[in-house]
């Protein structure tokens, strides 16, 4: 089943046997999977609602093999779907039925870590967390920390421009990457950015970040490493209603505080996660906020004091400050495990990713509660509140007929509302296949066309991850027509 995976494209008429014969010549035998039995486990990434059997799966062991593979695909006009750890939540690594899934999981070397220059050169299959682990002896770390950082890889982080719980202060992936080396669709090696802070020409490095595998196959990344702050402490504040919590977020920023992290979870989310993590969250609270300060001990003490004052004034019912590093990590562990932990209370969920102006958080929470009623589906809310980035987790049961479609409609409503509130349909998870339709709500046909021209500037034949990120113009027209009838309780754009 899938909500809508009709990506068959007549442009790609691939002779599978001929392709296999060619690829056998450039890849070791264990690096090419061809049997259905081996291919099916690759049919989806972290978003299981969208699935497609790949034509083949390739697991190149080095850049040379990857390049040879891309050249064969270019010559035979075969689509390529890059894949890292497949933890993505927008279906960016969902296979193409006429294409080769290229897993970069075997490219997992940290090529060089320079503690003086504070940079690391890594292969795309290196896990986010293992960069920080490798840098830890030098009191450095890699700042972007998506919740899946234990498993997700740097290549995927660049492809999605991943954020995390600390990006309000430390930036997204795009702010923490100096250079990306990759293979273009025609099999050329290209370097975007360099070892310095900027590069000559257009900022193609910025384009690579968040390009969802549509512009090049990433084979190497130079990341910046950040000195670990002397101290970090987190304030855990409880609220007896979500509106107060939402307003507290805006008040903190309004007070001129830029917290190192500012996160919010509602009751459904804390109740899902607490049994597993035992983070010590207040089970009576309707919402909790995690508000972190880092810096020198004096600086942190001063800032925590200011944060507490704002939170108290905003009506927090309980305020706790982490007393040591173990407790701080425990507070965060609950937040980081929140998505999958929801799997304990529901067989399936869709995770939304809209971003809105902070001041409208409370309003959005109320709207989501209404939609939850309307669709008869539960929804847990986990927000990167400081960035206004929402992650409503819509719970459903894929084994119940009609539920996945209802969940998808519920999600579309939230995303359209995000746009109507002056925000975007995706803050950090990417468009993938999941949000490809709602792109039509956020962008005009001219803008979508411009995206297509930009794509063609890198990949004229459209072989890299086709069907993702940018909708076809026909799709946009179709979507705006069908959704025009859908009733929305909030004002439309």
């Amino acid at each position, binding site marked *: 089943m899938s909500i809508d995976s009709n990506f068959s494209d007549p442009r790609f008429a691939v002779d599978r046997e001929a392709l296999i014969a060619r690829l056998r010549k450039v890849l070791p035998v264990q690096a090419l999977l061809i*049997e259905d039995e081996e291919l099916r*486990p690759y049919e989806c*990434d972290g978003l*299981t609602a969208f699935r497609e059997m790949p034509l083949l799966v390739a697991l190149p062991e080095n850049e040379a093999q990857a390049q040879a593979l891309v050249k064969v695909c270019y010559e035979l006009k075969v689509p390529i779907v890059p894949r890292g750890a497949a933890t993505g939540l927008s279906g960016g690594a969902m296979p193409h039925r006429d294409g080769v899934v290229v*897993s970069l999981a075997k490219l997992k070397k940290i090529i060089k870590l320079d503690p003086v220059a504070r940079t690391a050169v890594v292969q795309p*299959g290196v*896990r986010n967390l293992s960069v920080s682990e490798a840098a830890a002896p030098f009191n450095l770390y890699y700042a972007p920390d998506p919740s899946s950082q234990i*498993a997700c890889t740097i290549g995927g982080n660049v492809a999605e421009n991943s954020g995390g719980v600390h990006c309000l202060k430390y930036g997204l992936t795009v702010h923490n990457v100096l250079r990306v080396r990759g293979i273009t669709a025609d099999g050329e090696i290209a370097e975007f950015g360099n070892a310095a802070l900027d590069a000559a020409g257009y900022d193609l490095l910025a384009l690579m970040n968040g390009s969802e595998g549509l512009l090049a196959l990433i084979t190497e990344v130079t990341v910046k490493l950040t000195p670990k702050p002397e101290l970090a402490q987190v304030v855990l504040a409880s609220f007896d209603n979500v509106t107060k919590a939402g307003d507290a977020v805006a008040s903190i920023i309004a007070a001129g505080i830029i917290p190192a992290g500012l996160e919010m979870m509602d009751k459904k989310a804390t109740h899902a996660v607490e049994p597993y993590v035992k983070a010590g969250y207040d089970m009576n609270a309707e919402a909790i906020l995690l508000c972190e300060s880092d810096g020198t001990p004096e600086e942190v003490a001063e800032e925590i004091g200011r944060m507490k004052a704002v939170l108290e004034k905003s009506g927090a019912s309980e305020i706790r400050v982490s007393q040591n590093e173990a407790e701080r990590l425990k507070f965060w562990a609950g937040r980081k495990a929140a998505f999958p932990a929801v799997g304990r209370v529901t067989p399936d969920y869709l995770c939304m990713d809209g971003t809105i102006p902070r001041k409208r958080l409370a309003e959005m929470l109320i709207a989501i509660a209404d939609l939850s009623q309307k669709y008869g589906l539960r929804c847990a809310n986990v927000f990167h509140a400081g960035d206004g980035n929402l992650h409503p987790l819509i719970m459903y049961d894929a084994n119940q007929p009609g539920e996945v479609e209802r969940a998808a409609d519920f999600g579309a409503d939230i995303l359209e509302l995000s746009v109507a509130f002056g925000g975007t349909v995706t803050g950090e998870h990417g468009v993938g296949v999941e949000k490809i339709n709602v792109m039509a709500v956020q962008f005009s046909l001219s803008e979508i066309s411009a995206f297509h021209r930009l794509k063609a500037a890198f990949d004229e034949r459209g072989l890299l991850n086709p069907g993702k990120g940018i909708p076809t113009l026909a799709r946009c027209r179709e979507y705006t027509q069908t959704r025009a009838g859908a009733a929305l309780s909030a004002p439309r754009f």
Partner: protein
Amino acid sequence: MQTNLADFIKDTPEGREADAILRTCVHCGFCTATCPTYQLLGNELDGPRGRIYLIKQVLEGQPVTQKTQMHLDRCLSCRSCETTCPSGVKYHRLLDIGRAVVEQRVGRSVLEKATRFLLCEALPRPWVFKPAVKIGHLMRPLLPSILADKVPMPSENAPKPWPQPRTHKRRMIALPGCVQPTLTPNTNAATARVLDKLGIELFEPAGTGCCGALRYHLNAHDQALEDMRRVIDAWWPHIENGSVEAIVMTASGCGAHVKEYGDMFKHDPAYARKALRISELTRDASEIIAAEQSRLVELLRAASAGVGQRVAFHSPCTLQHGQKIRGVVESLLAAAGYELSPVADPHLCCGSAGTYSITQPTLSKQLRDNKLAALGAGSPAVFVTANIGCQTHLQSGSATPVRHWIELIDERLAH
């Protein structure tokens, strides 16, 4: 995750259990990060999430071949993934169910059958295993290296005797186990001596043999259940009369398995109650000793012990992931004055994993060598662990002595 199990299994107890487990998995992929084989091989099919998918398609009635079997065989059953999984997927149960179905569907080659038969027949029986090791030991110089490596070396430390029989009010049962009496007889003796000093009598009821884990993980479920019934029968009189307060496990592999007896017999009316009671009474030795820590500390203070050695602890998967006991042995060693050397990637398996070192020699050796490198990084004098399998496996690749932690506690108290 959406499921649609095939008719052949849908309405069986296994089918229902598998369906429930599959539906808790949300395919987040966190598990791949801590899976030893995924970290080595980088193929989705060699990680928990891929294996869950492979099992799912088998249970959904898709064709299955030796490819699926190979990827399932490569799993160490270390359960590191379960520790990582935020959704609470009971992976090892799904794997047991999946492996059994695949075994039925695909079968095994003659050679594989023979190996598995030998392992099933020899290892769980001390009276077969002991002479076999002796012969292997004598033949060792003549064997090709790949095989010679597999002949375990009995511990060089001569076993010290059990304590003089004393009647303590508190009594506990110990399991001799199958290979432990031959390879590391000092482990249970040391446990008995330590408990004796803590005022607890340890004894081994006769007629137990193997706890059943070995055959269970070789997919010989029926034979394994026989082993388990034998153990239950041997213990039950002592439990029934209320004379023992706990069952002490000195091999975490056995401990993890015995703690699941209750689950495994829940559909067997004759054994369900007994099995459940036994699981409830079962404790790892570290849990028992930790509960007596204040008394232990007094004893340690009284013993004129000097500064302890620097040691590196390898927590067996069956201890940290299977039984979810973490940091307990480490704190006991620290309390006894040993200096703990830091170990990278402590969650990863050493590659022993029951009979894995024999069925998957290449992966097993890679994992062992990685583990030995991690253990040796801080130049400790001794490697310490809590399971016979890990102990002999690590020892086969290292000149540094590998010992059971209880021996170290015992030695501190002996001074």
